[in-house]
């Protein structure tokens, strides 16, 4: 009996969905717009995160060592920094490497090179370039270096750290940190508002389609239909609407991201939207089908429920 009822509910739901042609089409279109907004927000979020990562990667704190600092001491500083949880990477540039880099940078500037020669030896100290996992953590790292330079990292009482350029970078880092925070908060609010508005519109569209069928609901009840039999087909129609919209959006976004990447990729500072979409495809599939099915079935359920209460 259960299977017979389920089969009949599904058959009736799909039949209504197809026979209602234009009404179903309008629900699918509205649902498609909702899923379009959700997908766009996910992709924009991906793009934002990518660009913020890019910017974050450009920021670092440099520790300049005195020229007399021993390499083993510098490497031990490096090691102690690398174990800190907030440090993402530490790059060591020896004083020899620093000299080569300097010369390469100024190879067309004879005056500077001459001045360097006149100094004799290597006036440049070794450097550690530290990247934090999050820009807000630079303050902590700089403090650690400040504290350490007067303690454990000193060499026979002498400080081996010449300077830490955190103070100069601080303004940029602070501004960046606050921008990232605001963008995140704003982004979340925008996403919530857009998604809420589109969900409300979808809900109302589905409610309208069921409002048009309210006489049908009363007829079903007069003929002796149980509430499962009345609700079932409407919920199946709602789910069909969600699934079709999700399929449309999955295909549309494959084409959209491919096209954007192909023709306008340069505007996205190296963010490969198509690749992002394909690598996150399963997640997108889950989110779109999930939201489509939940939206469609819930809206239908609530709308029919209203007419069953009387």
């Amino acid at each position: 009996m259960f299977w017979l009822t389920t089969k009949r509910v599904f058959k009736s739901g799909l039949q209504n969905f197809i026979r209602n042609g234009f009404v179903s089409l309008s629900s699918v279109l509205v649902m498609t717009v909702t899923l379009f907004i959700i997908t766009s927000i996910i992709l924009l979020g991906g793009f934002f995160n990518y660009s913020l990562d890019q910017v974050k990667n450009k920021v670092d704190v440099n520790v300049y060592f005195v020229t007399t600092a021993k390499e083993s001491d510098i490497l031990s500083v490096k090691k102690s920094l690398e174990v800190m949880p907030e440090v993402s990477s530490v790059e060591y540039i020896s004083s020899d490497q620093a000299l080569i880099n300097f010369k390469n940078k100024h190879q067309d500037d004879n005056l500077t090179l001459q001045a360097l020669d006149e100094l004799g030896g290597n006036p440049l100290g070794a450097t550690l370039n530290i990247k934090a996992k999050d820009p807000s953590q630079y303050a902590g790292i700089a403090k650690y270096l400040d504290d350490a330079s007067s303690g454990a990292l000193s060499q026979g009482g002498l400080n081996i750290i010449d300077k830490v350029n955190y103070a100069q970078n601080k303004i940029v880092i602070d501004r960046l940190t606050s921008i990232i925070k605001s963008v995140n908060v704003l982004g979340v609010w925008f996403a919530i508002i857009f998604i809420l508005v589109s969900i409300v519109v979808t809900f109302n569209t589905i409610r309208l389609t069921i409002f048009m069928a309210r006489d049908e609901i009363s007829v079903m009840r007069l003929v002796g239909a149980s509430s499962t039999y009345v609700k079932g087909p409407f919920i199946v129609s709602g789910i069909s609407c969600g699934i079709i919209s999700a399929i449309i959006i999955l295909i549309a976004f494959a084409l959209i991201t491919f096209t954007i990447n192909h023709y306008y990729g340069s505007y996205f500072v190296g963010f490969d939207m198509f690749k992002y979409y394909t690598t996150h495809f399963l997640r997108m599939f889950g989110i779109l089908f999930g939201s489509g099915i939940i939206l469609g079935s819930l809206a239908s359920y609530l709308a029919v429920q209203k007419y069953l209460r009387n």
Partner: protein
Amino acid sequence: MIVFDKITKVYPDGTVALEGISLIVEPKEFVSIVGHSGAGKTTLVKMLLSEEKPTSGKVFYESLNINHLKKHEIHHFRRKIGTVFQDFKLLPNKTVYENISFAMEMSGRGEEEIAADVPHVLELVDLSNKAYNFPHELSGGEKQRVAIARAIVNQPDIIIADEPTGNLDPINTNDIIHILKKINDLGTTIILTTHNKGVIDSLGKRVITMEKGKIVRDDKLGRYVL
């Protein structure tokens, strides 16, 4: 047997739709209820369908107090009653065949039974050639015959026909009344509400006349007197 026991219905705005109605309908009876619009005919049949609850009084079907039915029991009870309305109340998205099979599905009938019975009732109402048409493709008389086919397909104990000929021309009206009589001859109780004097006079069955929510006449072999 259907018993209306001192039924009174007062709507929240103070309108009295029924006032102290007591009435017994015997099994296999053909009862016509006549009266002006607003006399309370439709409210009375709605009581039997449990679409409306009386303010006071009781409605019984056999020994079952209809007012005491729980929400989930109502649809089971309604399957004992076939209904035919003035506005047909067909499902617009279903074909003639599906409108009738829908009523059988609701009663939990199997596919084989449906496949055997639907063509049979379609033949009875002379609509075998319209089985796959949608309601909007039918005339008023044809729609009403579909409604009757749907009402009788589950072989209900009672058929309520609320102004079934209200939207029909005289020829279709005769057809419908003829079918209802035939169904009654086969042993189904029929409760018919109507305005149509010709129909009542030609039937020669029991007639209950209502006025302002009260029964003013109850004639065994009645005529239309208003």
